[in-house]
């Protein structure tokens, strides 16, 4: 048998490689970014410490409106994913002919390389050559071409729709698994007691899906808040900054304009918000694991 000391050393030896990797690829860049956020690092090979100047600059500009836009964008995107995902999961769980085929058909947006899917949506939104504009014109709803990415309001919603399209399959499959884990005898007992479909959903399915829904919404919140590729490929944050979220603004500042210090300050702020979300997620998960009510 190993002594306590040897046991501790052995355990440390086992976790050391993972710990080193985490230190190298997570902790070091994070600390370096925080350090960079207090400097005027740019294209010059040297840089100076500037204290909180980069943070002051963030809040003296239009970044506050970018933060608000990011939260609104994230809220609607996550809410729609949850709603559509729940409806999709219930439908896919129903005993209908061809159910396996329908389940397979939910997957392409998730399986397809994300950039290809986004380019496809970009073409559909195109006013001159796009499918949506063509359908609306043929149906007589619009008189001429309608470029959905050309106006702030429509571009904002168009990017949300694409994000929802990408995110719904994962939510649906996750919820489907949650529904299938609900014991069948609960439904049978409710059926014997005369509960109709609606009541069975309200009183059994929905309450038992809540823990999964909370977990998934927290994870979806984190992914969506940080969503970059969809907006960047569709609009690059335009027109007139109407689809610029925090991550887009950070990229444009740090990589587009080579203002690494200012970009790092924005990234730190994003990290702060994501940490809050993660904290909430872990609290929810630990309470669920302990079987507590939320």
């Amino acid at each position, binding site marked *: 048998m190993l002594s306590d000391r040897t046991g501790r050393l052995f355990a440390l030896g086992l976790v050391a490689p993972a710990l080193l990797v985490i230190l190298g690829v997570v902790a070091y860049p994070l600390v370096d970014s925080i350090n960079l956020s207090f400097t005027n690092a740019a*294209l*010059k090979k040297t840089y100076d410490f500037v204290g909180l100047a980069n943070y002051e600059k963030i809040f003296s500009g239009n970044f506050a409106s970018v933060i608000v836009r990011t939260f609104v964008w994230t809220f609607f995107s996550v809410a729609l994913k949850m709603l559509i995902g729940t409806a999709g999961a219930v439908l896919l769980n129903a005993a209908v002919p061809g159910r396996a085929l329908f389940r397979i058909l939910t997957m392409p947006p998730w399986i397809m390389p994300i950039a290809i899917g986004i380019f496809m949506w970009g073409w559909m939104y195109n*006013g001159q050559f796009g499918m949506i504009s063509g359908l609306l014109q043929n149906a007589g709803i619009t008189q001429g071409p309608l470029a*959905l990415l050309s106006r702030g309001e429509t571009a904002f919603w168009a990017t949300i729709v694409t994000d929802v399209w990408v995110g719904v399959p994962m939510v649906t499959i996750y919820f489907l698994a949650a529904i299938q884990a609900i014991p069948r005898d609960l439904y049978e007992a409710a059926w014997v007691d005369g509960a109709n479909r609606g009541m069975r959903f309200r009183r059994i399915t929905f309450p038992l899906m809540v823990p999964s829904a909370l977990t998934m919404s927290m994870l979806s919140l984190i992914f969506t808040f940080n969503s970059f590729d969809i907006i960047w490929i569709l609009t690059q944050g335009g*027109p007139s900054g109407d689809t610029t979220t925090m991550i887009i603004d950070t990229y444009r500042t740090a990589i587009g*304009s080579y203002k690494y210090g200012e970009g790092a300050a924005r990234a730190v702020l994003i990290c702060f918000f994501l940490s809050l979300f993660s904290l909430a997620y872990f609290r929810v998960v630990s309470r669920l694991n302990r079987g507590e009510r939320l």
Partner: protein
Amino acid sequence: MTFHKRLMTGAVVALIASTGVALAEDKVLQFVECGDTPSPVHVDLAKEWEAKNPGFKVSMEVVPWGQCQDKVTQLAVAGNPVALAYVGSRTLKQFASNDLIVEMPMTAEQKASYYPYVPETVTFKGTQWGRPVAFSTKAFYWNKDLFKAAGLDPENPPKTFAEEIAAAKAIKEKTGIAGFGVVAKTFDNTMHQFLHWVYSNNGQVIDADGNIVLDSKENLEALTALKDISAYAEEGATSYEQNEVRQIFLDGKLGMIQASYGAAGLLTKANKFAWGVAPLPLGPSAKGPGTLLITDSLAVFKGTGVEEQAKDLAEYMTNPENQVKYEAGTGLTPLRPGKAVDDMLAADANFKPFIDGISYGGPEPLLTDYVGLQNVMIELVQSVVTGKAAPADALKKAAGELEQYK
């Protein structure tokens, strides 16, 4: 000799031999060219230069335009610069200000060999920071069939902003097809397209003394004209960049566009409708035909140890004789007047407007943060085109924002 001694001796011999090989190896000049495929002319010129400069090898890498500038910049900042890179001349001031590239002064004779204003596109602090390698000017294209359908004279293109707006209105109202192609996407050529309006009206963004003069009467006239013509433009102008607008024009769904000489070839090939090309219409303050003069340059980065050779390679590739070969292969506007231009004019009358615009043209503004400049100009155009801001207010705001990039 013991086994260990033999082993040691062998190792030393192997080390010396390998060092000898290393010493004999060619020094590599990394050359990044932007685009999809390497220019065959540049590939041949690099081989010729290698033959004249034993001991040096040119390693060419082609990077798509979207990532090209970022890649060479990031490599330079990270302390691993490429020797020579093909960059937009608008980046040179930023590179120079940050001590990333070397000076490449031109002699008076070299400067005089170019068209007017071309050396200015690479000049900062009284010296040159690159060698121009590509030149683009724009002219005005119109669809003669749509002009006819709108009751306009198809052989008489608009010559002023007012005539251009009136023609766009007539086309839109009489045919239902958009009269003019406005470029306003979140993309660099939105700024370029607006600068054609600016230089067609004797405007400027930054003057010779380095003052921001964007908020001027000339630029207000130009921006107001762009706003007015937007009412007759394609739906959703902020969704389209230059090549997308050109494609709509090629499909016969636009009355007029501003485009480069390359569009003439595409129109001839497509052969869908009758078209014409003329100098860009002029604004009320214009003194003569103008256009934005965009150049790309070969820039030599600091810290490679082969700066002198890279400069020599850049000079070799862009000397008058070799530059003509490159231009002939790409369809670009020649950088220098001469026989090649005379031949092009004799071969194709459509080429003339692209040369005419040079006389009152102007360069891309050289500022210390070209991305910042680009973002401000795109926001300026988009805010006016979408009706979010009045031209005068938008110009004032943009001029204020540009002060930080002087």
